[in-house]
């Protein structure tokens, strides 16, 4: 699972944001704000990680039940798919 090329991650006033440049800006015209968990998911998906690796990484960083993590990760992935952000 990979995020399309052209998305740029930056920080503004302590907030992690993502914008689309180039080709992808034609399908995504806005800004995404990532909280700490979302940052982990985004960075891993940018490198083409699979769902299981993402879930593992979050379980290692936070003391949360697997069920919750799976639900949150799946929800995030669905949102990205819906916005046409994933390849």
């Amino acid at each position: 699972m990979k995020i399309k090329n052209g998305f740029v991650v930056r920080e503004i006033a302590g907030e992690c944001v993502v914008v689309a440049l180039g080709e992808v800006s034609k399908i995504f015209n806005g800004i995404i704000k990532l909280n700490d968990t979302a940052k982990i998911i985004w960075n891993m998906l940018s490198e083409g990680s699979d769902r299981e690796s993402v879930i593992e990484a979050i379980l290692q960083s936070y003391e949360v039940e697997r069920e919750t993590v799976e639900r949150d990760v799946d929800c995030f992935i669905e949102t990205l798919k819906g916005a046409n952000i994933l390849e």
Partner: protein
Amino acid sequence: MFFIKMADMVIEIHHRYNYVKWLCKDYIVPDGTTPDLSVRVSREDIEAEIKASQTEVSAGYAEGICLYRAICKQLPMRFQSYLMHCAVIEYEGKGYAFAAKSGTGKSTHIFLWQKRFGDKVHIVNGDKPILRFLEDGRLYAYGTPWCGKEGFNENTSVPLHAICFIERSPINTIHSIKADEAVMRIFHQLLSPEDIQTVDALFPLLDRTLREIPCYVLGCNISEEAAEVAYYGMNPSIE
């Protein structure tokens, strides 16, 4: 070709139609002034703008829009500045920027300020001011020829005191917002960056803006009280 001074920059404008020179009449400076920036747009740009426009516009009008866009795209990289879609007023030496979706009532709200606080309220730019960090470290908002259909602008600048996002509401309330909310709201009022150079120039300016300028959300109706609530909300040290 003609020269203007706008936002403390001298700009050389190569134009095809007379409209833009008329639009810039209050900003023109003598020919041959050394420009900080030079712009021209192609016939293709103008045609694309006409096509993309929601309403029927003349080639001259479209050329004006394209020229302003061409100028504003260079602002972050070269002039520590950027375009923001908002209405800026000056009162008591302070600049207040009001941002909202089109049609929400920015103009109405600034008229209410004039009604409530009188003719010492000046409209610096009714629609598309340039914001610029000057050497004194402050963020200034500028009048420009591109200021909305009513033409509200003064060829002047004012240090920005606050940014206020307006929403319609039955009662008048105001609260301050932090960077997490402000960054999302402000982004919709800017020219979307098209390349990484612009991102790397613009985002630090936004970072500075959000760290230095307090941001508020105002829910308001069309009574004079809306202006009072806004004014006192953005000036907590005034009783």
